[in-house]
């Protein structure tokens, strides 16, 4: 599949993905093989959410360890996808389901529900959500904005927690 993958992925696209994500050529083609093997319907996307390969790579790029950036330090370029700030943005978007730049109580409850299944009652889950918002909320709007989110996580080693080690 090595040769087949690289002919299906156009050279310009390959260059763009390389620049955008910071991944190497070999890594990208292997991930493309992987993507196409998962893409059963062969329409270039994964699942109902319709993630195409660019989107898939962009998501994956958030999880690159920060050390990898040392060699390709481009001070004038755009912020790499795997910077601490972008990693936090990514995580924030996981909670902010309606994309209004705030994590509301409802959204937090939904995400919590996904993580615990049926094992915790609505009441208990509600109090967990309330406590979390209480601790994070600083402007009193009973929701968590991105700034508040960042503040809560300032002591967390985001770089380490949100990193997947890629082999070369």
């Amino acid at each position, binding site marked *: 599949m090595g040769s087949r993958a690289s002919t299906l992925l156009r050279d310009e696209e390959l260059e763009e993905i390389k620049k955008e994500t910071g991944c190497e050529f070999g890594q990208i083609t292997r991930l493309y093989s992987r993507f196409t*093997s998962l893409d059963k319907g062969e329409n270039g996307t994964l699942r109902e959410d319709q993630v195409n390969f660019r989107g898939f790579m962009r998501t994956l790029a958030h999880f690159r360890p920060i050390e990898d950036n040392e060699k390709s330090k481009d001070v004038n370029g755009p912020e790499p996808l795997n910077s601490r700030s972008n990693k936090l943005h990514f995580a924030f978007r996981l909670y902010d389901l309606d994309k209004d730049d705030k994590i509301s109580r409802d959204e937090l409850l939904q995400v919590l529900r996904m993580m615990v299944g049926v094992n915790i009652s609505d009441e208990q889950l509600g109090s967990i959500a309330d406590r979390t918002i209480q601790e994070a909320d600083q402007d009193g709007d009973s929701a968590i904005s991105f700034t508040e989110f960042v503040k809560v996580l300032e002591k967390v080693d985001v770089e380490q927690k949100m990193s*997947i080690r890629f082999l070369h």
Partner: protein
Amino acid sequence: IIQRDESPMEKGLSGLRGRDFELSDVFYFSKKGLEAIVEDEVTQRFSSEELVVTLAFIGIGLLVMGTTLVGQLPESSLKNWLSELVHLTCCRICVRALSGTIHYHNKQYKPQKGGICVANHTSPIDVLILTMDGCYAMVGQVHGGLLGIIQRAMVKACPHVWFERSEMKDRHLVTQRLREHIADKKKLPILIFPEEMFGLLAINMDERSRHLIFNWNAFSFLFSQYNPQFGDAFWNSSKYNMVSYLLRMMTSWAIVCDVWYMPPMTREKGEDAVQDGGLKRAKVKDTFKEEQQKNYSKMIVGNESLNSEAN
């Protein structure tokens, strides 16, 4: 492509047991999810695509050549033995080309000569998978193309019951041929799929034939089930022709299949076993997710109840 982080949930959530939910928990789950999507062990398989296709061609080629050669021999037990050998060997090569891992259960109930075996039909490669464990006589229509070549070759070496399309309409011919095959105790067990069974039931046949064919003591059953996580064996014939379907099968991760031979039983018991098999498949996926959810819940609720007590 990646080095997976194998640390358990508690460690990944920077936890001692009984810590509260934190907003940072989502990092762990999203990382795990993405790792699972990218997982490396399988990707390496794809570099041997060319080898796999070659293997398949060798398997089919050998089958055609082998059966033609064996077909030249006069009827004898040697011929039957050789024919089975050719079938089994080529089958094994082909299944290897599909990266097949097949487990056969309850081999003591394998169908014997002179009987009929009913199997469920999931994909065109069902036959391949079942034949790997023993030779059967097939029933069905002669196809054109690649499949037809294989069919015609197979019949030279040992008797199968292939029908031309025109012959299928002639019920008497169908029943007569089946009768003859079953009556000969030396012939291989017939492999039949439920669709064909229903077709047979619909045919108006005489008492003697009906008695012979539907002698339930001569029936055995087996149930095959594919593990869909590894390779989807379903063939959408409107979208793919046989050859491209086979190519897809060969480049999928693996074909993992379980075959259960069922003990002789009454009809109701047979239905139960099939239902149970289907239920098992659905259950496994959910229970895995539920287990993860339970573990995580234990972690965060344990501490919560402590908290409320303290307050």
